[in-house]
C-alpha cells in the first residue's frame, strides 16, 4: 500500500510505514508539506496494520527546515492558501503544526527518524518529536532561527532543553550553529550513529524488532537491543 502526496510519500511495507520527506534536494518544509503531513497523520490513526513509522528524507538530506520566505509571506499577505485551498495565517499555521507534531509523538507505535545529511530548523524539530533518532555519521544538525532574528517555532527550544539540559539548549538556540552527529549524540539529541548508507535500513530493522509489545514510556530501553 502506498500514498503519494506532492511533498511526502508514504509506503507501508510489511507493516512498517516508510514516510519520506519528498522534495529533494533539501526537502524544505513548505506550507503544502505541513498541510499534507497533517492530513497523512490523520489517516494513519485508522491504519490498523501499521506497526511503526520510519521518517527519512529523499536523497542526501533529511530536511533543511521551513521555507523562511514563504513563512514570512504569511505575515505580509495573510492570504496564502494551502493545498486544501484553505487560507492560512502564521499563528494558526504554527499552532496546527505543533499540534501535528504532538500527535506524532503521541502515537503508540515506534516513530523513528532516520537522519542523513542536513537536519535543520523545523526539520530538526520534526525529528525531536520522534521517539528515536538514528543518524548517519555525515548528519548535520542545527536550529539557525536566531541568526534570522527568529526563534524555533515548533517546540525546538523545549525539546532540546528536555534532552540536553537548559544550559546546552540556551547555547544551541541562541548561537544557532550547526553541529555534527557525534556532538548530537553527546548532547543526547540522537540515539545512535550509523554509516550513512545503513541508517534507514537500521531504523527499519530496529522498528521490526520492537513493534511487538511496544511501550512508549520505556522507549529508551529498547535501544539496549541494538549492539
Amino acid at each position: 500500500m502506498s500514498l503519494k502526496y506532492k511533498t511526502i510519500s508514504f509506503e507501508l511495507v510489511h507493516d512498517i510505514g516508510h514516510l519520506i520527506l519528498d522534495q529533494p534536494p533539501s526537502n524544505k518544509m513548505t506550507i503544502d508539506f505541513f498541510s499534507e503531513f497533517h492530513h497523512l497523520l490523520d489517516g494513519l490513526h485508522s491504519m490498523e496494520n501499521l506497526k511503526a513509522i520510519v521518517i527519512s528524507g529523499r536523497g542526501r538530506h533529511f530536511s533543511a527546515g521551513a521555507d523562511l520566505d514563504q513563512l514570512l509571506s504569511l505575515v505580509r499577505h495573510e492570504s496564502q492558501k494551502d493545498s486544501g485551498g484553505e487560507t492560512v495565517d502564521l499563528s494558526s499555521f504554527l499552532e496546527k503544526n505543533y499540534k501535528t507534531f504532538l500527535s506524532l509523538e503521541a502515537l503508540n507505535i515506534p516513530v523513528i527518524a532516520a537522519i542523513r545529511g542536513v537536519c535543520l530548523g523545523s526539520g530538526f524539530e520534526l525529528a525531536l518529536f520522534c521517539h528515536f533518532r538514528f543518524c548517519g555519521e555525515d548528519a548535520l544538525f542545527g536550529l539557525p532561527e536566531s541568526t534570522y532574528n527568529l526563534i524555533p517555532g515548533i517546540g525546538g527550544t523545549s525539546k532540546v532543553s528536555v534532552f540536553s539540559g537548559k544550559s546546552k539548549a540556551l547555547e544551541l538556540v541562541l548561537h544557532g550553529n550547526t553541529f555534527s552527529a557525534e556532538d548530537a549524540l553527546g548532547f543526547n539529541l540522537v540515539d545512535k550513529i550509523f554509516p550513512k548508507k545503513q541508517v534507514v535500513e537500521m531504523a527499519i530493522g530496529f522498528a521490526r524488532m520492537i513493534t511487538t509489545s511496544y511501550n512508549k514510556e520505556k522507549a529508551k530501553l529498547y535501544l539496549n537491543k541494538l549492539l
Partner: protein
Amino acid sequence: MERSKNVEWEVKNSIGILTLSSPPENYLMEPEFIGIEFLQNQIRHEKVKGIIICGAGRHFSGGAKLDDLFQMAKDRDNMTRQLEKGKALLDYIEYLDIPVIAAIRGVCFGAGLEIALTAHLRVCSENALFAFPESNYSLIPGLGGTERLSEKASFPQTLKMILKGDMIDVKEAREMKIADYIVPDSEVLDFSFSLLIKMTEGRSLKVIHYVMLALMNTKHLSMQEAMKEETRMFCELASEEAERRNNNQDN
C-alpha cells in the same frame, strides 16, 4: 568601570563583566554582593546582551568569610534580612532575560558556588575546585545552593556534596552537570567572552529575551502551553522580520 562592595563592573561590546574583586580569595562581604538596582540600570542603559561573572586573580570566590558570618549571626534579624537580600539578588540573576556565564577559575566555594549555580552556563578551568563546606561548620548553604545543585545533579550527588562538604574537581563537577565547559586555566575568560559574543552578536535584544523566556517556560509550563507561548513569540518576531524585509525592499 564601577566599584561597589568589592565588585567591579564594566561593559565591553554589550557584554557586562562582573568581577568579584577582593583577592586573593574574593570573599563576599555580604550576601547582596552587588545592588539589584545598579545591575538593572546598567543592563537597561548599556543595552547589555549577556553577563560574565568571574573572580579577580586566580580564584572565583571562597564564599563568605566565617568570621564575618558569625559576626553577622549575632543579630539574627539582620542576618535574615541580609540573606533575603542575597537570595533576591541570586533569583534576579537566574531569571534575567539575557544569558549569564560564570567563568570559574580556582576556588569556587560556598556562597561563591551558589552564585555560580545561578548562571545559565558555567565555563570552568581545568584547575577549578568546588565545595559546599558549610556542613563542616554545622551550617547549610544559605543562598539556595542546595536547591540549585539538586536541579542539576542527582539526589545522591547533591546529598554527598553538601553533607560531606568535600572539595570536588572539574571532572566530578562535569559528572554532576555543574561544569558545562572545561578549558585551560588561562583561557577561561576569553572563552566565556567569545561564547557570549557568538550567542548574542547580531541578535536583537528581543530575540535574546524570547529565547530566555522560552527556556524558562519549559520549567514552569506544560509542553503544550510552552509551545503555545513559543508560537506567540515566533509570530511577533516574524512580523518584525517581515517588516524589516519590506522596508529594505522599499529602499
